């Protein structure tokens, strides 16, 4: 164990307190596993959003039963379950068109994101052919409105770049690498050895490419036969279907509309 603080005699304090604990007959200096923690990995947005759309496109399918309330909250769960059980046919009827619409949104997004990934790969390949580093202009943030110069045909632009090699040629300066993902050592006297940290997806490397997404685990288990998605058949499943069953209170049907979650805010006191 480590005590960190410039203004305390750490060693002396530890030995003094350990001595007192010994006198009290309490265990001292027992090994405790230090939890690993580092900077959170990047979540690839295109893949995440596609999975989220696939997961949620079927508006008739219930979110898993959940309540943050104990005690009487369980009764609410039962009521929700009973509602789903008895009214699912009406829910399907009411949300049928929404389900179709959501399916189109999902498919459109899938097509567009696949196209973006393909274009990114092509850009990477072109860059690699040019020398491995993006031209200065391409490292600027993407403007919301396309500037006039960007509207010129690619071939014209390539000609311009050839004509102005000094301007367009990638410099020899290496691209700014992603910083190590742990806080700077001098500011983080954490006392946790590096070996204790879980390796994170982004640590010390460039951000992940689209195909290397760090995805969350499915938040909820999809229930059994009564829970078959009504999305188009044959649509690819991005996430594996865990076999864990729903909570006893939910049973298998669990077809419930989720109450809108309260808006999350920052720290409130």
């Amino acid at each position, binding site marked *: *164990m*480590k*005590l*960190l*603080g*410039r*203004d*305390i005699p750490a060693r002396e*304090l530890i030995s003094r307190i350990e001595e*007192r*604990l010994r006198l009290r007959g309490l265990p001292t200096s*027992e090994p*405790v596993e230090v939890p690993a*923690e580092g*900077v*959170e990995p*990047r*979540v*690839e*947005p295109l893949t*995440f*959003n596609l999975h*989220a759309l696939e997961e949620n496109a079927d508006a008739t399918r219930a979110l898993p039963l*959940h309540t*943050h*309330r*104990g*005690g*009487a*909250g369980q009764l609410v769960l039962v009521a929700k379950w009973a509602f789903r059980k008895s009214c699912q046919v009406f829910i399907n009827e009411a949300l049928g068109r929404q389900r179709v619409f959501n399916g189109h949104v999902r498919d459109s997004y899938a097509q567009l994101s696949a196209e973006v990934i393909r274009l990114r790969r092509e850009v990477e390949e072109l860059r690699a052919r040019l020398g491995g580093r993006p031209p200065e202009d391409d*490292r600027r*943030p*993407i403007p*919301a*409105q396309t500037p006039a110069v960007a509207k010129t045909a690619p071939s014209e632009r390539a000609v311009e770049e050839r004509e102005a090699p000094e301007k367009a040629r990638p410099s020899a300066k290496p691209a700014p690498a*992603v*910083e190590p*993902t*742990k*806080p700077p050592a001098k500011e*983080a*006297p*954490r*006392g*946790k050895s590096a070996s204790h940290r879980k390796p994170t997806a*982004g*640590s010390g490397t460039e*951000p992940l490419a689209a195909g290397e997404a760090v995805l*969350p685990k499915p*938040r*909820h288990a999809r229930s059994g036969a009564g829970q078959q998605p009504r999305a188009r058949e044959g649509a690819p499943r991005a996430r594996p279907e865990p076999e864990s069953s729903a909570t006893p209170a939910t049973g298998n049907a669990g077809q419930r509309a*989720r109450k809108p*979650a309260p*808006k*999350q*805010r*920052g*720290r*409130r*006191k």
Partner: protein
Amino acid sequence: MAIHQLIPSFVPGDATGQAALHLQLLLRRMGHAGAIYADEVGAGLEGLASPASALRPEPGDLVLYHHGIASPLSSRLMHLPCRRGVVFHNISPARFYTGLPLEDALVAGRAQLAAMAPFADVAIGVSDFNAAELRAAGYRNVHTVPLFIEPERFSRASADPKMLQRLSGPGPVLLGVSRVMPHKRFEDLITLHREVLRLRPQARLLMVGGYEPGSRYFRSLKREAKGLSGVHFLGRLSHAQLVAAYRSASVFVSMSEHEGFGVPLIEAMAAEVPVLAYAAAAVPETLGGAGVAFDQKRFAFFAELAVDLSEDLSLREPVIAGQTRRLEHFSAESAQAALSRALEGLLPRPAPRPRRVPKRPRVGLVVQRYGEVTGGAEKLAAQVAEHMAPHWDITVLTTCAKNHLSWENAFPPGPDEVDGIKVLRFPSTRVRNIRGFNGLSRQVFDKPNERLREEQWVAEQGPLCPGLLNHLATTRDAYDGYLFFTYLYAPTVWGLPLVADRALLVPTTHDESPIRFGLYADVFERPRALLCLTPEELTIIEKYFPDHARTRVVGVGVDRPAADGARFREKHGLRKHYLLYVGRQEPGKGVGELLEHHHALKERYADAPDLVLAGDSNMELSGEGVRYLGRIDEQDKHDALAGALAVVVPSRYESLSLLTLEAFAQGTPVLVNGRSDVLVGQVERSGAGRTYTDLDSFIRGLREVGDERTPMGKKGLEYVKKQGWPQVVAAYREEMERILEENRQ
């Protein structure tokens, strides 16, 4: 170029909202105007933040989006037709909420963070830890701009006395502050408290933070705490109550498993409470070697340590001293320096300074109303403008409002001219709800407040005039200097910091409740000089703002036009002697008390003088012998002053009474409110009047003034002859030339 902020939620008690407010303060100090836009605006905060849907940035503007948990605003940011920045407040790791609805929002927030990266011109983390996460998410041009704190708002004087009393008792007292969420590990606080109870059976544990009473987590905490003595769940507290909790604690303890910054850590430092914190995520960085951080939760050990920190002064005092040193890192100055570095490449370069001092400097005169308006400060501003016009190229920058209670736009926006003075008017964007404003005033006056509350009060006070602020921020090259009038109103509070390096302020300070707001420090400390009207005003400023800017008592000139009292009597059919008050007829000016005294006077004395009132009225004016004339013209006013038995000045809050000086100029003595130091000073220095504090002193003073009207009138005349406009004009010119010369150098 404006720098706007976009934030999912702007509500009281929200650390992100407070960060946005602080950032706005720094941006104003750096000369940038801009507004806060939020998806959710807390009740009563509409004057401070606008709906996100109203954001319409110009292409050159910068929008800083505060990102945390998933929000639809991140998508909006990517499509804004302007420059964009992300301020990252961190997101709790989803692993703490596996299987719960919150998990989705947390992961989606991280996906949004990564999605925004290619669209951001600048990324700001509030800690190096957050900055590292931004880089991991793919951001370039990443900077750390730490949050800051105003330590004086955590002083013992800022604590709620009732809460202090309630929390007083035996120690040691452990304190935890944060929302009651699983990853904050309140259960560890309870375990620690259980261990402390073995050592000190009287120990107490205070847990502060919003919680849902029915939630599973909170109920589990309650179960855990069952049977333990001294456990108090205090819930969400007001700022003053929070300070009381800090000030009642022996040790602040954080067992949180994840902090992107840890605002309570620095709040505890400011409240001089030793910090004992689990070294999770950004906690060691925030502590920066101060306090005590630890990497393993050994409760018996930390119970011993908590008791030592509470009782062993040789351990406690160095820790508190180290924390105080660490706080310097979280000052507004440090944060501003970091923010300047972060925005360096995005901001336009400042224009080169002029090589020589202009002969006729271009001066922007900023005042809340101008033209046909009643009001002492506004009238003074008009007089100064007229007398300075031959020496300065003056443009009056003001609102379109005429009525100071509602700020309704009465004048057309744009260029105007009043008595040969150029005026540029900007529309007020909000009508004041005076009833709501008075209610808010009762809540915040004479109490310690957080900055948000004080800013809310200024916003409700108004006038809200973003066009004027934007003009100040974007046309700095059009003016050589600025002259602001009145410290109290929003155009000064928010406008002066934008141009403070070239600003003079005529504060017209009153010893009134709002002057105790810490927010006015920028107004009194940042301009180049404060031009006071009386020595008493200077005393007030020194009392509340010891670090004030350079001051100078410049006074005010008094015109002495020819006047005829008989003409006034004849015009208005006045037969008897009369007392006169000219000005805004409102309770805040003491008119109610004056009416009561006059009514009592009439009841006691058959030959009591009448009471003549003139000026805009916002109250019922009636009574035996009371004549209300409405607005009267200047000549009528001077005639009225000349013909009065005495002029009564009933206001308690005055920085200088122009009416008093104008009465002296007509050889008429005054009877003034003795609770105003300024009025008492004016009467004592001139010897041309009496003061009153109650009915008896009112009657006694009136009798003396009546008996000695002529000699007192002569003294008053002599007094104002010494206060001429030439001296006042010379003082203003001298101060402006000093600014020009310093800026040139």
